[in-house]
């Protein structure tokens, strides 16, 4: 009996020691990556670096950004892995990021790397705006499939469109900023004026329009391709449309938080985050990744997506964000009556 107990204790102790030896450093990593992908990301990383344990802190883009900004004077995160570049730009201008050029950064598409030298952040994958079109519901209502952004202003769609509110959703802002870049300042606002007439309501979340379109709650939702592909894979009668004028996009990106006590481990993680292996990992969900030549087509993703991505000016977006949101709010948010 006593022997058995000793044996058990010994086993437990050796197990503890083994775990301790395995995870020498723990990194607190903030992320907005989808919950279902996180485990896979950490496991793939640990195949190459078993000595670094990742403690995920996950939430939606807005909340993670708010959290990081709130902790500005007392940062809790070591690394941000998988947050919108627009948010990282915001953090950069607050001086919160540790500039670092990860090994092999030159292999990435220039679009995906911060312009500063050394870069403050590096991109992972692109997250592209798209229109989700429910064939069943639209068929019932006799709504033709739109081909372009301009098509969506057709009065036939009145009350059958839904899009995220840029004031609470990163995806919403991405749409608005892309329209302003594509159609020019005046043209962009004119376009939104017309579009507003057709919008049933603005949602708080960026993925909601696509999920609501998938559920038939609304025939057409302006959202992003990744979400649409997932819903389509789940069996929703969806068509994912890439408007022909071009689509706005943002990227998920990685950065080291200035002031981290675990700089070496953080650098190891960021180095790994741009490897071919990592890019292949991102490719399981996202059709467009930072390393050219890696991406294979993702099921249910529209094929012409990469060609339609606009030359997004992130600096324009970051510098004008406050002014754009204010203008948007003035034009469309004060209308309090709901439209059916």
């Amino acid at each position: 009996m006593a022997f058995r107990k000793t044996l058990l204790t010994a086993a437990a102790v050796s197990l503890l020691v083994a775990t301790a030896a395995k995870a020498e450093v723990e990194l607190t990593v903030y992320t907005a990556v989808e919950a279902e992908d996180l485990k896979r990301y950490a496991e793939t990383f640990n195949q190459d670096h078993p000595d670094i344990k990742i403690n995920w802190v996950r939430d939606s883009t807005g909340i993670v950004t708010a959290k990081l900004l709130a902790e500005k004077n007392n940062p809790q995160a070591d690394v941000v892995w998988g947050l919108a570049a627009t948010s990282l730009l915001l953090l950069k201008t607050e001086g919160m990021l540790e500039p670092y050029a990860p090994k092999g950064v030159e292999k990435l598409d220039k679009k995906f790397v911060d312009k500063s030298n050394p870069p403050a952040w590096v991109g992972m994958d692109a997250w592209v705006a798209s229109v989700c079109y429910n064939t069943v519901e639209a068929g019932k209502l006799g709504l033709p499939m739109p081909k372009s952004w301009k098509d969506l202003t057709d009065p036939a769609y009145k009350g059958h469109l839904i899009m995220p509110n840029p004031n609470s959703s990163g995806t919403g802002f991405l749409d608005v900023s892309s329209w302003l870049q594509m159609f020019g300042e005046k043209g962009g606002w004119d376009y939104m004026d017309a579009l507003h007439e057709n919008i049933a309501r603005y949602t708080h979340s960026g993925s909601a329009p696509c999920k609501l379109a998938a559920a038939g709650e609304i025939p057409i939702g302006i959202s992003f391709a990744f979400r649409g592909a997932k819903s389509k894979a789940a069996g929703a009668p969806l068509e994912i449309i890439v408007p022909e004028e071009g689509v706005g996009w943002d990227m998920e990106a990685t950065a080291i938080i200035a002031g981290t006590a675990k700089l070496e481990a953080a650098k190891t993680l960021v180095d790994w985050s741009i490897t071919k292996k990592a890019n292949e990992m991102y490719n399981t969900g996202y059709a467009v990744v930072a390393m050219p030549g890696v991406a294979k087509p993702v099921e249910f993703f529209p094929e012409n997506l990469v060609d339609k991505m606009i030359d997004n000016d992130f600096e324009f977006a970051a510098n004008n964000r406050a002014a754009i949101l204010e203008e948007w709010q003035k034009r469309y948010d004060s209308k309090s009556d709901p439209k059916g």
Partner: protein
Amino acid sequence: MASTADALAAAGRPPKARPIKPRLGRDDLIMRGFMAVIALYLVIAIALPLYAMLSKSFSTYSFDLTAYEFQVSDEVGNFDAPPVSAAALNDELQAVSPEDLSTSSDGRLPATSFFPDFSFRSPVMYKIRGTSADAVYLVGTERFSGTEWREVDSNNFRRVMLRPARDIGFANYVTYFSTPALFQSIENSIFISALSTIITVTLAFGFAYALSRSCMRLKGFFRLVALAPILVPSLLPGIGLVYLFGNQGMIKELLLGESIYGPIGIVIGSVFFTFPHAMIIITTALAISDARLYEAAECLKASRWKIFWTVTVPGARYGLISAAFVVFNLVITDFGLPKVIGGQYNMLAVDIYKQVIGQQNFEMGAVVSVVLLMPALVAFAVDRQVQKKQVALLSARSVPYQPKPNRRFDWLAFGYCGLIAVFIVGLLAVCQYAALIKFWPYDLSLSLKNYAFDLMDGGGWDSYYNSIQMALLTAVAGTAVVFVGAYMVEKTKGFETGRSLFQLLAMLPMAIPGMVLGLAYIFFFNEPANPLNFIYGTMAILVICTVTHFYTVSHLTAVTALKQMDREFESVAASLKQPFYKLFRVVTVPVCLPTILDISIYLFVNAMTTVSAVIFLYSPTTTLASVAVLNMNDAGDIAPAAAMGMMIFYTNAGARLIHLAVSKGVLKRTQAWRFR
């Protein structure tokens, strides 16, 4: 209060003597010590965070033009011209108006605003520097500060942005009230709250009237059903309404083409979740009316209708007013429901969320919080006044009213209560049904896939277990703090100022909307200089916030129970030389055990359903079920949200049953003396 204390003090001293200050015994000191500790808790948990929030709302950002200097070269790059400050340039050009100088923490002002003939193709070079070390500007996305000159060519000068400096002032409030999209919410919030209040109080009055004045059957069942909405988060009815009246709704035709997303949805949902609160208060008010008044009225041959208006309604008027204020406050401070079903209809509580989470504009969030605090404070103050007036409605000679059977009236009452019960049970049943459907409305087969919470946003099953843990901790810790606090404030001798101060602190949480409390906690506890900073992001802060949020009602319940216990107990114990804590343990706690259990179940249920107070405070390791409902719904996973909402319902219902069983056991063991 003061007069009773005086009377008691007078009784303890010989007549005509000079007032003698009673010597403080060890007990008194310990009790005051306890009181001070709990008062300190309240100060830290509510007064200081509110102060932090208030000061945040006055923290403004504006561009300080005197802090920047420029120097412009000639065509070949010689800097001969003297440096000029941005302020001097602006005085000359009036390029930026004073209003445009005030901005948010994320504000940027292009340096080219001060150079009307700027062209990015020109060979002219520019130099920029701050006049103090903390003047910040951007070149592109690069951040610079300090007094060193930095040279940039024209093409890069267009990318130079000035950043605002922090200041103190009213600018945020000015911005708020000059932005129609923002202050429109005040009107919307008040309109929705007033409308919901009228409907809920009317419906609840009818229900309570049927319960107390008729002899209908199934009274116990109806009472139980009417209490059910307390067990779910306020946003669950919103989800149910989407399934009923949404664009794919089961019975959307009933809305005649109106959209459920907006005022209609918010009002119906509000009526659902505030109904039990109004029903409880009005039932209590109706229960204490005096049968002798009815007898008198009948003797005077008054009609039933007349009796209703001259006896019943006036008798219940304080209850009605009280119910109205409680409902009004619940609706105006609720956040989950308008978020789920409000559509484009802006309300104050949602605005706070949008400002803080959507735009990271903490200052404006604080301003909206202060605005939201106003109606809540007014409602609270008025309600307090009304409560004070309602004292001696029931005298010792009153006779409780006993309803007499009346076939027609009883069936009418039964039908009415039946309709309300169908509404409540129906909405909950819809949520449960939706949770079990595979893919509404395309695949109606049943499945449990919506319970795979780990694959969704919101924290998965962990959030459910976290919620239970949080609710248990809140129930245990909260009940202990509240009851000890109430005991000390009720049984301490003398020390009037301290006691009334404590009472005031204990009443304060009632007037603070959860949303405001949560935001105040971020400002206060997340400050690195705060020694309590370490509790930020832990379970502890959630428990503290929830205990504080629901402190007042628990405190009042405890005080009421303690008031029923004669102070003689303390005197007897003192004369037997028994310390107060022994009395507390052996007599007070066992006697008040039913009340203690009531407080803990109240705290448990509310901790399970609360959303608004904790939405800013949960961390990834402490996600909560109620927040998960919101987040899943937000991300478009409506069926899983309904599933999680119903999990909360079953958990709370289970807790209620356990509470009932325990209370019965306790009643038998410790309360036998009540049934002599």
